[in-house]
């Protein structure tokens, strides 16, 4: 069982994001034990602190917690949408996992974003450019990976839209004319355009009505099974977590209060907050 330790795809250690000017007591005075993420001495805000985990290839990790618990911050830091205040993260396909990707140059970060990661945001406006057609949005990812052949781009884009069940004849329409569920599927098509080994899903079903939610979840599950993409699923919805994930982190006030197998978190939660969370659902 020793070999299994080195099998990670993404390794995250002490990932921290603090807004404002923290002092040496900030981390001690915030967190779930203080029930706050605002430092009383400096008023700095600890969005997340000391988040550590390993993600294996093809594994689906859930991050669950209430609004403001820092769960979205974690994926945004890893996708370089924000800059971390501290901590490190290694991604196996990036320099064979030897260098901290958070310290990479902007060009390297862009390479990682384009080739090694995909992100699906809660709001399609964050992930899609509404001034481009849905095909153009996918083209952007393909172009960034060096594909400059319009014919090939259109073939690949229509294949992806087909896979995500967006009518291919709407490829040249702007996503602003699409329904919410369809926008979300275009976003997914864009995110997986370059076959990344890692996909972040940030509250992807929040705000969709139930039947559309189900379709989006089914799509994600199918893609996971078919392509074996590792995923980090951020959600406050425990049924989404139950349906998609193998392991789960529970976050509160910017800290991970519990991590474990998803069925264990749901059936035998240890931490006070996890118990509250689970009991509110069931």
């Amino acid at each position, binding site marked *: 069982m020793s070999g299994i330790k080195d099998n990670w795809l993404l390794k995250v250690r002490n990932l921290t994001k603090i807004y404002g000017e923290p002092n040496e007591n900030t981390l001690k005075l915030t967190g779930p034990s203080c029930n706050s993420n605002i430092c009383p001495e400096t008023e700095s805000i600890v969005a997340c602190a000391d988040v550590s985990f390993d993600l294996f290839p093809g594994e689906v990790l859930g991050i669950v917690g209430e609004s403001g618990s820092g769960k979205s911050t974690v994926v945004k830091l890893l996708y370089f949408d924000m800059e971390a205040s501290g901590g490190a993260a290694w991604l196996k396909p990036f320099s064979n996992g030897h260098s901290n990707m958070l310290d990479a140059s*902007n*060009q390297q970060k*862009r390479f990682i974003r384009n080739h090694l990661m995909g992100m699906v945001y809660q709001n399609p406006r964050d992930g899609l*450019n509404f*001034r*481009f*057609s849905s*095909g*153009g*949005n996918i*083209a*952007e990812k393909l*172009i*960034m990976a060096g594909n*400059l*052949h*319009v*014919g090939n*781009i*259109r073939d690949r884009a229509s294949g992806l839209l087909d896979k995500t069940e967006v009518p291919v004849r709407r490829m*040249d329409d702007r996503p602003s004319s699409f329904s919410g569920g369809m926008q979300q599927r275009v976003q997914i098509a864009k995110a997986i355009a370059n076959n990344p080994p890692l996909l972040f899903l940030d509250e992807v079903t929040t705000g969709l009505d139930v039947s559309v939610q189900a379709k989006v979840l089914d799509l994600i599950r199918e893609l996971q099974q078919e392509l074996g993409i590792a995923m980090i699923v951020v959600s406050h919805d425990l049924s989404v977590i139950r349906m998609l994930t193998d392991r789960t982190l529970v976050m509160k006030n910017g800290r991970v209060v519990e991590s474990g197998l998803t069925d264990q978190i749901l059936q035998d939660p240890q931490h006070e907050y996890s118990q509250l969370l689970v009991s509110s659902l069931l």
Partner: protein
Amino acid sequence: MIENKKYSNKYNFAFIDESTKKEIRRKLLKAVAIPGYQVPYSSPEMPISRGWGTGGLHVSLALIGRDDIFKIIDQGSDASVNACNLREFVQMMTHCKVTFDTTEATLIQSRHRITEEVLKANQLFVFQVPQPEPLRGVERYENKTRQMHGEADYAKMWVSLYESFVRYGDIMLGAGYPVKVNDRYIMAPSPIPRWDVPNLNQSEALFLFGAGREKRLYVVPPHTKVEPLEFEDVKFDIERFLGKSCYRTGSGKAFLDELFLDDGSKQFVVNDSNYLDKLAAGNPVRQHVNKYLNTIQS
């Protein structure tokens, strides 16, 4: 009595004071060193409003010497109002010789055209640029576009070309087709027609671009690679006039203007006025050479 020649003229030579000229020249040297890179500069007050050719004027006046021969055109014409006024202003401020003849001129200022006649190593060619930022159409924030240039992150530009092709079946950029300079920066060649874009490539002359309102200078040095952006399967092309020819000279191998004559008939005429005059008079002319022009029978 000692004659004070220094103050006999109300203005400094070429209007702009020497230290400001120095600043502009310094910025131009930087621009030469980094082909296609937009260098911010002071853009001092001029007696014309910004957006009316101040950038071009700054460059021309900062570089002009007493021996220079100045030519200025506006969309190919030496005689348009804008060109005439600026020519008069430069002449008043410098007493330099001015000309219409492209081959004679040493300093040519232009709005929206490159001359039809080929340029030589001793010529400076100055563009008046309204919008120096080629990425402005896809990204409205300056700090973002600067970062995109810095990191050569041009995917959005390419997507806009893709979108244009998808929407209209062609890359429908009439003027100001984006080019990549020296394999690095994407540059707006000012709104010159596509016809002129290939002539920026590996030129003998020095091309200088001044955007007064936007306070940017940039340069394409001689013998620099300038390529229009194109996909592997969707290529750049110049305007095609499909067999039309100039009604005065019969030439079909020049950028043509559409013209409605007094009798209501539509004709075409060579846009470059000096080139037209030379052709009409039967004087010898040497046109630019590029692979697109080679495909047109003259």
